[in-house]
């Protein structure tokens, strides 16, 4: 996750509290999505950005996970993400996200 986005996630969490923040990831690859998820939970694995050594433990989901999909208008989802859902390896992304959440997220909802 680029340094500027790490800074924004940190600032938003400081301002609103971790309980009130959900991070939605849109990365197209399971590995890249997992790294972003790890960054906002365990901390920056590359030790380069503002989240290096900072474990926010936030709620984090990918846009192709049901936790996000079920919360939004299905027509808009189809219009904005339906095509990508066809293209991406949804199973691999879901598995990677679940694994990161289980290891590092402070929330089990």
């Amino acid at each position, binding site marked *: 996750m680029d340094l500027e986005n790490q800074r924004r996630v940190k600032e938003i969490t400081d301002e609103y509290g971790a309980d009130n923040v959900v991070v939605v990831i849109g990365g*197209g*690859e399971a*590995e*890249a999505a997992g*790294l972003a998820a790890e960054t906002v939970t365990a901390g920056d694995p*590359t030790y*380069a950005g503002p989240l290096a050594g900072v474990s926010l433990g936030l709620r984090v989901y990918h846009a192709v996970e049901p936790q996000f999909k079920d919360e939004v208008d299905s027509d808009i989802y189809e*219009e*904005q*993400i*339906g*095509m*990508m859902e*066809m*293209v991406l390896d949804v199973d691999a992304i879901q598995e990677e996200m679940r694994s990161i959440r289980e290891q590092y997220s402070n929330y089990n909802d």
Partner: protein
Amino acid sequence: MFPSLRAASYILVHAPDMVIQNGTTQVVERIVNPESEYLKALPNHLRSYEEVVAYAPNQVYIGNLKPQALRELEEPWSNQPVASASPDGPMGHIFEERLLIGLIKVCDAFDLVILEENFVGEIQPELDKLQLPEKFKTLKPGAQLSRIMTEIDERHAEPLQAGGKVVGCVKRAHDIDPNLDSHVIMENLVVKATGVLAGLELLKKSDIDPLSIPYVIECSEEAAGDMNQRGGGNFAKAIAEIMGADNATGSDTRGFCAAPMHAIVKAAALVQAGVYDKVLVLAGGATAKLGMNGKDHVKKDLPVFEDVLGGFAVLITQNDGVHPILRTDLVGSHTVGTGSSPQAVMTSLISGPVDKAGMKISDVDVYSVEMQNPDITKPAGAGDVPNANYKMIAALAVMRKEIERSQINEFVEKHGLPGWAPTQGHIPSGVPYVGHALQSFLNGEIERAMIVGKGSLFLARMTNLFDGVSLIMEKNPGVAEEAGVSKDEIRKMLSEALRDFAASLGE
């Protein structure tokens, strides 16, 4: 009439010393973590010139292999050197870093570059092989190494290295202005020099007289200017000068990775409107992106694949009845209102031109998208970028009910290509296929191709908008445009007719 795509050239420069010295990833690492394991390991992961030449994606880039040939090779392609590889190909050439350093001095109009005296003697015969104009052919005598080291150690000069040894330096052009410091001047001189290489390669391979070119558009991603006009320009004219295009003027077009397609559309429009009979679109390479994903490549014990600077040049001319035409009526544009979701982007860029033509998505034989080499992007967690693009185009065809969902892979195989371009920002986006397309049109292998350029504007922090432009190329139907004479004749006929009509009114 629609303009013709007359010629295309592609150059690479193997630049291992610049990977270490000038690539942003390495520059940042030296600042934040100078003792890092990565910096220590990096030199062991750099490839030789011979390995870079034998690397199949590079052979595709300069036209010695067709893109489809990569499908026959198991990935990673670094394990599959091409036995018959050559640094010279029908569309371009792979140069060595030493030659580039010599050419950087040729491109230095302000005496900011100092080369070591022995290096000047060594590199002059190599420079003689380039078709430089007479006045730029001969390097000035070089300086002693001690003077160069003083500039580097005491006056903030950027070292120029070949084979790990200092052979020169680039001085800063201003004491305070960060836009003219030695790092930026170096970056910009490399853009200029690699742009010159691409331009000269086009002239040579396609037998074009530089004096016949009236306009040049440069479309890389760097900014030339000073603190009062940071992106003032003008790389195009600076490059045209060294190419010997004395009758040309020009300007720069910027748009991140989408810039080459913006430039090609503009060039086509200028030619079709009759403003210029030819426009040369070109771009040099980016030192900043050398070794950009180096950490991932080193971590996975792979070669640092981002060890080449890329450049290209494309010549657009009046319709000559032979070379493929650019359908300026079938342009796709990502507009401000389009939205940034991949779905919205692809709809605007792919469905846009297809719908205008009243065609189906599968009526385009080949799509050229973001053609990044997956050897580079996969280990960095970015996946196979062209493949993902082709799947998106196929998915769009599914949503339009033109193909079944089960046919996505078949569509990708038929209308897509494996990626071969170095991740040099503007270089991979659509334009690497233009030269191969040109040949395929001339050989009668394809009837229609779409070239798609996409760009991430958010990196400049000025807007969150995405960007993209696309254009359909078609086989030339075979009717050449007659030069200005016919237009004059038409005007003469019209004026005679009007005169006769006026006379008849008076009778």
